[in-house]
Structures are given as C-alpha cells and as structure tokens.
C-alpha cells in the first residue's frame, strides 16, 4: 500500500421510506443490503466489514437490536459492529467503515442504517427519554421543542419568519415529488405549511419531518478493490470530517466560539471536509443533501456550509436558492429529511443520495451532470456534525 487508501461508494440499496413497513426488521435489512450488493457488482463473499447503525432502541421497542439486524446485513463470519449517535447514526457507521478500510482491515464494507420507529405507539414520549433525566427531562423536552428553541433564536438573531421557512419546506416537498422512495410526495405549498397544525411554536406540522421507517445500505470499498468493477460508476470520497459539541444547549447560548444556532461543529466539519476536497464552499458542489429534519434547521446550516453569512440567510431563501432549476447547487433533490426521516438511516441516506447523484443513477431526481456532492449529518442535541464530499469517477 502506498499512501492513504482511496475510498469509493460502489453501490446503494434502499427500501422505500414510509410511515410504516409491514416486514420484519431483518427482512427489511436483508432486502436493502441485497439491493446494495447487486448495485455494487460485489458478492457477499467480497465484503470484509459489516457496520450497522440503529438509533434509540426504545423507538423500535427492541433492546440491543444489533443481535438480529447485523446478521441480516450479512455479518455472519465477518468483522461487525453497531453504532448509535442519534441522528448521525447512519453516517457514523459509514465513517467507521471508511476508517477501518483505510486502516487496512479489509477491502470492502457494507454499511446499513435502520429505522423502525413506527413500532413505538408514543414517539414523542420516547424522544423525551433521550434528554438529561436530571436537569432537563421534566420540562417535557422533545425533538420538536428542541428544534423550536433554535428556530425562535434564529427569528430573534437574523429575522427569519415562518413565511421564509415555509418556502424552504415548499422546495423540499417539490423535490420529493420526484423521489419514489420519499415518504411525503405531496407538493405542499407555502400556504399549506403556514396553515398546518402548530406543534411547538414557531414549528408547524409541515415545518417538521414525518415519522418514517426504512433501511438504507451502502457498499464502500478501497478503490483498489473497486478497480475490479471497471465500467461501473462509483462515487469517490473526497473529504470527510466529524466534530462533536457539548450536550448542554444552554452552554451554547451566547458562547464566544459559536452560539447555539451557529452550528459550530458543522462549521468545523465543513471547513475540514471542503478543504480536503479543494472546495471553497459547499455552493461549489452541484448537489447538497442537508441533514435537517426542520426547514429552520436547513437554513441554520447555510452559514456553516459557506453559502452566505448567517445574517444573510433570509435573503438567500428569498432569492429562491436551492431549487432544481435555480442555477446554483440543488439542495435536497431527494426532498431531504422533511420528506422522509427514518432516524437511524437518515444521515446515511444523505450520503447514499449524493452517491447516486454523482454516479448518474438517481433516476427521476437526477440532477443533470452532477459531478460533486456534499452531504451533512446532524445528531444528538445538534451536537454531532458530519460533512462528506463525493465526486464521480
């Protein structure tokens, strides 16, 4: 081996993302992994590592689900482990696989992200249980109110309005209408968003992601192994970085290094990943898949991704930024997490969708000529951030 290994994504397999799947978890995992292997041209025997992501066990109601889903992902006889970092679970699994491949632990890895949250009959109560039981849980904190606390601060700091965010939602839903895998395929309008049910002010139902189930699988290999698949498209990994923040959201209020809504860790991860890929800004990419389960959260990522200064975010939304036919980078051609957010899979889906785009294999949602794509991940209490840059062969 000379120099660091070059890595590429060879194949993607996904179930559709839906409110509820009627198959068992191992069946769904097997199906997505089978599809990813078929897409990659590799066989099960070519896989050395199987890394699986599964988010809070209590959402699926199955404790230590790794016992059942890893073998369904092809782990029998291979190096395997399960990873959980909340929303970033899927991409954290992919990074673990990439690191192990670079370390020489194998030539090819299978990564899978799994979500069965519709098995829970009270999802908000389960989400309350992810917060600090000593200082915070009694306040009824959930993932929606956690988001709303940020949205309010963005209104205060930068003048965002419900109308501006509704335009972001409208664009995501419009894009999702071209994605047969998306859970929400209705092209909701700004008016629909603004009149949907208020969940936690200022967040309404259509400002937020749905509860979705599904499985995403990705085959990643060292390009020396990928060379055997000559003639097939692949997505090269050009840059990647992950940075972790404190859990305590209150510690980030007014913090010198970066306020709660300045997404310090995404700023750091993007700076590193874009730098590795030689990009000055994520706006230099053709496609950007932003891991944001709310419209306000997408706009919170604009400054860290170097689209604009934080204060100029509202004007950028006003300009119609991110539309498929807008001339600039296409944001979330898949519809993004607002159209399907299976928690344990969603950050891996951002990577998978970027891979499909630069491989020219994204079907109806293909952005013509997409050569470079950026995927982000956000997990924990907006605390784990990742940024990945892919380019085509």
């Amino acid at each position: 081996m000379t120099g660091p290994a070059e890595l590429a994504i060879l194949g993607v397999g996904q179930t559709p993302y839906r409110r509820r799947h009627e198959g068992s978890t191992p069946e769904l995992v097997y199906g997505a992994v089978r599809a990813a292997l078929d897409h990659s041209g590799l066989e099960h025997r070519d896989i050395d590592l199987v890394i699986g992501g599964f988010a809070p066990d209590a959402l699926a109601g199955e404790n230590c689900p790794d016992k059942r889903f890893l073998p369904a992902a092809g782990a029998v006889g291979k190096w395997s482990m399960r990873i959980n970092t909340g929303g970033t679970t899927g991409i954290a699994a992919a990074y673990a696989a990439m690191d192990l491949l670079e370390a020489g632990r194998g030539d090819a890895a299978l990564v899978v992200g799994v979500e069965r949250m519709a098995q829970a009959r009270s999802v908000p109560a389960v989400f309350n249980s992810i917060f600090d039981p000593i200082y915070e849980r009694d306040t009824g904190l959930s993932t929606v109110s956690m988001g709303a606390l940020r949205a309010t601060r963005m209104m205060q700091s930068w003048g965002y309005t419900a109308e501006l965010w509704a335009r972001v939602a409208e664009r995501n839903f419009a894009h999702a209408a071209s994605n047969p895998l998306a859970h929400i395929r209705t092209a909701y309008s700004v008016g629909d968003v603004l009149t949907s049910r208020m969940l936690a002010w200022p967040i309404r139902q259509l400002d937020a992601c749905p509860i979705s189930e599904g499985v995403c699988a990705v085959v990643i290999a060292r390009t020396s192994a990928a060379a055997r698949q000559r003639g097939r498209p692949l997505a090269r990994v050009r840059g990647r970085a992950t940075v972790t923040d404190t859990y305590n959201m209150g510690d980030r209020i007014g913090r010198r290094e970066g306020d709660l809504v300045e997404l310090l860790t995404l700023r750091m991860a993007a700076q590193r990943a874009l730098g590795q890929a030689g990009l000055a800004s994520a706006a230099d990419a053709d496609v950007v898949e932003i891991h944001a389960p709310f419209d306000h959260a997408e706009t919170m990522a604009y400054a860290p991704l170097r689209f604009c200064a934080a204060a100029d975010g509202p004007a950028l939304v006003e300009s119609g930024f991110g539309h498929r036919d807008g001339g600039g980078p296409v944001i979330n051609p898949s519809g993004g997490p607002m159209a399907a957010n299976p928690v344990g899979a969603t950050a891996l889906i951002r990577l998978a969708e970027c891979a499909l785009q630069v491989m020219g294999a994204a079907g109806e949602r293909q952005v013509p000529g997409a050569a470079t794509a950026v995927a982000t991940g956000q997990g924990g209490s907006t605390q784990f951030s990742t940024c990945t840059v892919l380019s085509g062969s």
Partner: protein
Amino acid sequence: MGESAAGKVPPLTIDGHWAFDYTYYAGDAASRFFAELANRRIMGTRCPQCLRVLVPARGFCDACFVETTDWVQVSPHGTLETFTILTTSFPGLPEPPLVVGYVMLAGASSAVLNFVDGIDLTDPDAAGTAMLGRPPVTARFKDVCEGRITDFVFTLDEPA
C-alpha cells in the same frame, strides 16, 4: 412439488410493552444544586480555565475538560434567551399550552431551561411574537421544593 414463496398471508403483528422503572443518581454537583434550590438559591460552578459560571451546576467543564472549583450563587433575574410554546398534546408529556425557554441568569455564563409561567397563550402566534425581544424574567420558587428542576419557574418581569 413445493409451494411458491409468493403465496401471501396478511402481515402478523404481535403486541409489545416496554415500561421499566429506573433510579437515576443526580451526581455530586446536581445533588448540591437541588439542595440549594430548597434554600431559594440558584447555584453555578466556575471553571478555573475558561472562567465560565455553568448553570445549572456541573462537576466539570466539558469544553476545558477540567473540574470546576468555586460554587457561585447567581441572580434570580435574567433574560429569556429563547423559548418555544408547546401547543400539541402528546401522551406522556406535560399538557399544553406551556412555554419553556432558556434563561441566562445574571452572573451565569450558560442558560438554564425551565417553564415560563403566567403568559396568555390564547393566541400562540401573538404570544410568541411578543416574547421575541429577549425579555427580562425572574425565577419564582415553589412553596415546597422536592429536588427537581421544576422547583422554580420563570415569569416575565413585564406582561408580554
């Protein structure tokens, strides 16, 4: 001759139930923080390196990765830094409408999350818009403290 695998039967579902009881140890810092609430005092701990006063109190600063040293009483008066109005009822969560927000108390370097009481929430949009200007708030203690963060709530110093 075997049967085709394509023969479909309706999906079988099996009920599950997951309700376990737990005992959480609050730890040294939080135990003292809650004990001080009973004395009507909100306490923070100072990091010797970044000099931030962390509220509610923590045993160590996770940014500098050192133990906190001094205990510091902070003011019950502060600023509502951000908030949300919970408007939808979910099983197992407090019954809306409710306001929760992060408050930076005078003398603290980090904000504490708690309920903000006494606000007219008939029109959530109007109430939310009225509170956007980081209004001043004050912590009000309950008559009986039981060692929970809800031993105090915030109220706006001037009606929204």
